[in-house]
């Protein structure tokens, strides 16, 4: 740890990405990336779930709301799910939720689903590096990108449903 690297890092925007990896494929792949000593961007915080089918869209909302710049979901390849079809459910929820996020002004690069099998440590590296770069280019997540003429109206709507001031 050196002061140099600290200042160096402070100059650049470092995205915060929360990743939800399924226990059987992607979490194991991330372990494999580790044992293979593949280096990747340190911006990802991995949270283990048993199956990508456990990924509640509310977790994504929660992560964005709490300051994540991106959310990554990792699951088994189609047909390989340890629980038969959890990854298909994850995919459906992902597709639906992605389109909602887009309408909320959250770029699609910020929410990503990848199938990564237990043997694809290199894919963990590739996906995380790619996503980190993409989000770095996008900049920090701004949740208040509402056109000004609509801003007031939206604020009112949101007040009505009990969300405090921010658009989500």
């Amino acid at each position, binding site marked *: *740890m*050196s002061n140099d*690297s*600290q200042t160096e*890092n402070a100059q650049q925007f470092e995205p*915060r990405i*929360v990743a939800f990896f399924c*226990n*059987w*494929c992607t*979490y*194991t792949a*991330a*372990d494999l*990336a*580790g*044992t293979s*000593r*593949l*280096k*990747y961007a*340190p911006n990802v*915080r*991995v*949270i*283990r*779930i*048993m*199956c990508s*089918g*456990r*990924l*509640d*869209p*509310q*977790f994504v909302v*929660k*992560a964005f709301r*709490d*300051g*994540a710049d991106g959310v990554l979901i990792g699951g088994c390849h189609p*047909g*390989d799910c*340890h*629980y*038969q*079809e*959890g990854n298909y*459910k994850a995919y459906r*929820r992902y597709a639906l939720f992605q389109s909602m996020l887009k309408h909320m002004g959250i770029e699609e690069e910020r929410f990503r689903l990848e199938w990564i*099998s*237990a*043997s*694809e440590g290199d894919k963990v*590296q590739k996906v995380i590096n790619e996503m980190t770069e993409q989000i770095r280019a996008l900049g920090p997540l701004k949740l208040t990108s509402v056109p000004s003429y609509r801003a007031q109206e939206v604020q009112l709507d949101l007040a009505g449903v009990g969300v405090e001031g921010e658009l989500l």
Partner: protein
Amino acid sequence: MSAFDIQENGDFRIGVFVCDCGINIAGKVNVSAVAEFAGTLPNVVVTREYKFMCSDPGQELIQNDVKEFRLNRVVVASCSPLMHEATFRRATAEAGLNQYFFQMVNIREHVSWVTENEYLATEKAKALVAAAVRRVKVHRALESKSVPVNPDVLVVGGGIAGIHAALTIANAGKKVYLVEREPTIGGHMAKFDKTFPTLDCAACILTPKMSSVKAHKNITLWTYSEIDKVDGFAGNFTVRVKRKPRYIKEEDCVGCNLCVEACIFKEGKFEDEFNVGLSKRKPIYMPFPQATPSVVLIDPETCLHFKTGKCKQKCVEVCERGAIDFNQQEEFKEINVGAIILATGFKTFDPHRISEYGYGVYPNVYTSLEIERLVNASGPTQGEVLMRDGRKPKSVAIIHCVGSRDRKTNAYCSRVCCMYSLKLAHLIKERTGAEIYNYYIDMRTPGKGYEEFYDKLLQEGVHFIRGRVAEVTNWAMVPSEEDKLIIRAEDTLIGVARRVPVDMVILSVGLEAHDDAGEVQRLFNISCSKEGWFLERHPKLAPVSTFTDGIFIAGACQGPKDIPDTVAQAGAAAAEALAMVDIGHVELEPNTANVETVMCSGCKTCISMCPFSAITFDAENWRAEFNEALCKGCGTCVVTCPTGAAQQHLYTDDEMYEEIEGVLHYV
């Protein structure tokens, strides 16, 4: 964090234990800084840094601190939970806490090993520790579920691995089902003449084991059968086996072969699978003389009765036992087993893929497996080395690493080819006196007696040329090359491009995973490496276990290996399976879903989500009912529940939210 948990647990007293893992973690992560940071987190009363937390003194440290500081929660930041979660849970339990009042943080595989920058690695570790500290507070006391185990074992694949595993388990007094897809057990080993380096006759050591399988009272042998469906979990699998029709009543056939002789086809006319196409068989045939079970079969693709319906059915006439049954149908058997061993083996590399070696173009280019049959005393030429034109070769080239150590095909070393090439060189030299040229990249002969065998071949006057062969061609440039196959290669030891004319070329093909390994992987819910080999749980510490409890792997389906290694692994897999079924019960992770009845609105959404039919509807009380025995703990029902009534143990919404907040708000 819900109010409920605070009330239940009162004052939190958390201990955080950060592991150096030698320098594996400490080399990149500033472990003391992480421990110091953890000490500043709410409710953390003690933090420790230790060289090897998983060691006995490390575990003792945790246990002493639990007592001394009256800890009620434990967080260990070390390696992957897939590696040591069980170890630390046990340590937590032995200290007198519920083992699930523990949370593990992966700062080795997910931090120190994958991060370049030391400062950022340390920060990442802190974030993960903070998340665990928050999460562990909402953990609940759980009991792991213990369920009875079915003592029977299923072995899939009847090669030497499956045979050895089945016999070991059967000898221990357990019932074994051995399922083989081909009409006979024996696998690849049954095709070999000799085995390296001892030159043991393969049949002499294999066939007695094959007969003991057949005769063993504890083994149910189903050949010409495939696994159709697998349900259940460790200790209680339900497996459906498809028995393909062989059009012979297995229990009535005595293997007298009279039907084969009587067949309307006087000579064999169809490619003989066992002799890899080097000889012809009839539509009704015995795969090879020592086939086990010793039962013939009919190939409906070539049998006149099936093709035209006009055959005189001589086979039926001669069979005194009436064993032939043209109306036999596919049959399904359902069995219950506690453990499964997969020993499905390998296939050899198809050299058509390397067109410059001329396989399939020049008749005298053979694969090593074809040569195994040619030198085999029970093979198509009774062991005489004759080429397709009937001549004895005077010179033979053996090309190593065909489909191995080659980025265009397979990057890995197939491990057995150097040794079997030496064996074939010895056998051909012994039987024909031919000049033999081995083209190798590196000679790889690690193993008991292997290097000595290589040395013996050098003494015997076999030629070894170091260089990858560029091309096999019949394009003669000088008269001595006429009617020969010319090997073009650079001899890298003398730095000269050479042309060597030979009569016969043997391609030492590598080992590959079966084409349908992916289907088998899905059927049994295990993982494959990129090359298609079944993935072991840990390459060193759990080499025959898979990520799916109760399913073990043995032999070349896990990766290329020779017979001694295969047998050793089969023994290991048998021991693991026995250890599981013999104890009589299995502990299951309590990560099942449950429902908070008062909150369930009876919307039934979760019922349609469950792939295991673990949720039913209780119409009287208008709510969902969860069957924990059927639940496998994926948690997808929790996501769909609109009221939050459905929750998954170990992955409750509270726990997930705490973890999300933790990784993002750690400072």
